């Protein structure tokens, strides 16, 4: 590894994995595989426990703000682990001079989102640092939820079999593009709104009715491509994805073309990948599509036997190629 931490090591791709494994995992004695939530068993209860830091810039973007994001993100990490999210703790690192009004708006968003998701914010911490020592506001949320014994396999995907179907609940890339647009470094405005939303009720409805759900993961930093590659390695199988069936909104598609981004690698904050057993996929799709958060759900691919653990994309024009992990931040095209 380099002498200094680089931005690429925070991209969510291979370099982030390397950083986590080489610096933290061994020293902390953490058990593999690393999933969205830790599963804790104590005194007859099983709890899912997770934590996440939020450093989004700008703090306010179309469709949300850092506060809403901090609640949704942690709720979703618990929900995709099969848990019922219950309690959240929130820590704030605030830069001296931060507008009080903004802080109030952000706190109100958190309260609203917690109410919507049915979780309680029960603990927290605040630190204020000198001007210039942090960028406006960083938030860390940790959360815990109850995990029923029959849901313990959801986070690890250990029941996945070849033939299982992959489903996502809607179009990809909207969060990343909305944030990029709000950064004001594009010389045009975009109509794209972040998909930032708590998915726990949607996921609960699916898990309540469909008994053959094998795996779930939210498609945040690193996007769908990263999650698929992590999954392929975790379960030791291959995955095929049908590019034409992956929903992407036109404004996102257009901006990706212009800036050289691939929507399959872009961050989402209200999207979940569900792996369902053969025969269960239509039922999952029906449930998703009956909810506004899953209205544009699609079946996008399936699990296949492949010792090489590759993710293969059937391209929209009928070709085939590998869909790899991102190797760094997606960079703009120059010619």
């Amino acid at each position: 590894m380099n002498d200094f931490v680089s931005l690429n090591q925070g991209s969510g791709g291979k370099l982030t994995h390397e950083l986590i494994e080489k610096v933290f995992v061994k020293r902390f004695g953490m058990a593999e595989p690393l999933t969205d939530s830790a599963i804790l068993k104590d005194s007859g209860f099983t709890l899912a426990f997770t934590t996440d830091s939020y450093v989004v810039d700008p703090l306010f973007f179309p469709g949300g703000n850092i506060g809403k994001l901090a609640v949704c993100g942690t709720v979703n990490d618990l929900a995709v682990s099969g848990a019922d999210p219950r309690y959240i703790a929130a820590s704030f690192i605030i830069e001296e001079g931060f507008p009080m009004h903004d802080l109030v708006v952000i706190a109100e968003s958190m309260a609203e989102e917690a109410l919507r998701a049915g979780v309680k914010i029960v603990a927290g911490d605040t630190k204020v640092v000198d001007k210039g020592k942090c960028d406006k506001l960083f938030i860390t949320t940790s959360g815990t939820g109850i995990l029923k014994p029959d849901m313990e396999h959801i986070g690890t995907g250990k029941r996945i079999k070849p033939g299982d179907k992959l489903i996502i609940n809607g179009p990809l890339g909207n969060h990343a593009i909305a944030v990029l647009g709000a950064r004001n470094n594009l010389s045009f405005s975009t109509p794209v709104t972040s998909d930032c939303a708590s998915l726990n009720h949607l996921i609960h409805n699916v898990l309540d009715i469909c008994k053959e759900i094998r795996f779930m993961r939210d498609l945040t930093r690193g996007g769908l491509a990263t999650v698929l590659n992590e999954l392929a390695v975790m379960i030791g199988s291959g995955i095929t994805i049908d590019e034409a069936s992956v929903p992407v909104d036109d404004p996102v598609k257009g901006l990706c073309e212009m800036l050289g981004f691939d929507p399959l690698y872009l961050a989402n904050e209200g999207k979940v990948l569900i792996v369902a057993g053969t025969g269960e996929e239509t039922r999952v799709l029906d449930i998703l599509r009956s909810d506004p958060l899953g209205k544009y759900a699609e079946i996008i691919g399936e699990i296949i036997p492949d010792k090489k653990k590759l993710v293969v994309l059937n391209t929209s024009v009928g070709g085939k190629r590998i869909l790899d992990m991102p190797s760094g931040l997606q960079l703009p095209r120059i010619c």
Partner: protein
Amino acid sequence: MKYIDEYRNKDLVMKLTDLINKSVRRDYTFMEVCGGHTAAIHRFGITSLLPGNIKLISGPGCPVCVTGTDFIDKAIAYSKMEDVIITTFGDLIRVPGSASSLEKEKAAGADIRIVLSGLDALEIARINSEKKVIFLGIGFETTAPGTAVTIKLAEKDYIKNFFLLSAHKIMPPAMEAIIKEGVNLDGFICPGHVATITGSAVFNFIPEKFNLSCVITGFEPADILQSILMLIRQVNRNTPKVEIQYSRAVTVNGNSIAQRHLSEVFEPCNAQWRGFGVIPSSGLMLRKDFERFNVENNTPVRINFQEDNELCICGEILRGLKTPYDCPLFADICFPENPLGACMVSNEGSCNTYYKYRLTK
């Protein structure tokens, strides 16, 4: 989506593939010069659609890849100076120099900012008038007019702290160098974006002097397949010429406004290309009237340039002599997280593209 969906129409693509299959009579080797084409070919899995006797090889059209190590070393040396802000296109920051990269220097504290255009860099200069703002100008005829306009604007607005480190290049001399190298080729998939600026006529020397076919090509799957079909037909009939497939953007004479800006600000010079060495009259340097924006005049810098890793075959790949699969370092020692050569860095670099979209037939 308009201008996208119709060119990614599966039925159309299948029809073109079918016509290609019916037209092939022998082995064909075509070079896609532009890195944008290399990326599109692999991203859409075009190679998996083509018959086995059509070989596509990648050329020197990724501006990041052909930029010499000495340029990166100079940029790094400037980034270490007091009160300097380096502004650059994103792809360049991970390219290895002799001993470091801009990315590593950024992590170690240098003020290096990614911009989407020269005008963004000029804006940074306006806001930071107490600092020297250096824009790393790379790219071919496509990006160079943007730099020319930026320089003119800096002149007009008396912006004294804005400077250019130029590695801008032009494409036709490199294509001529490849032909003279003796690469076995039947024709070129010519760069559509470059030709949008230059017009198609700048490539006329290729069929006239060297008897090779040329088709100016767009960047969507149907564009590329149609161009391959046009090239096959030219070869079959032995009628090499320059044809424009990308007619929705390219004309014979090109964009005269962009050409004017380019020639008013820049003049041709000899330029260093990674893999080729110096190619005469293939670079662009600032004309005398704009010389004060040349950072190398304003603040000369000395570098300890070291040769690239001797096992790295980037140079031969850029010259079309080898493919990334021929490289002993490819995927084992050299991969996007640990690039030893520039071709592994840029999204349009051959090695990066081959690695990312490793082909499945």
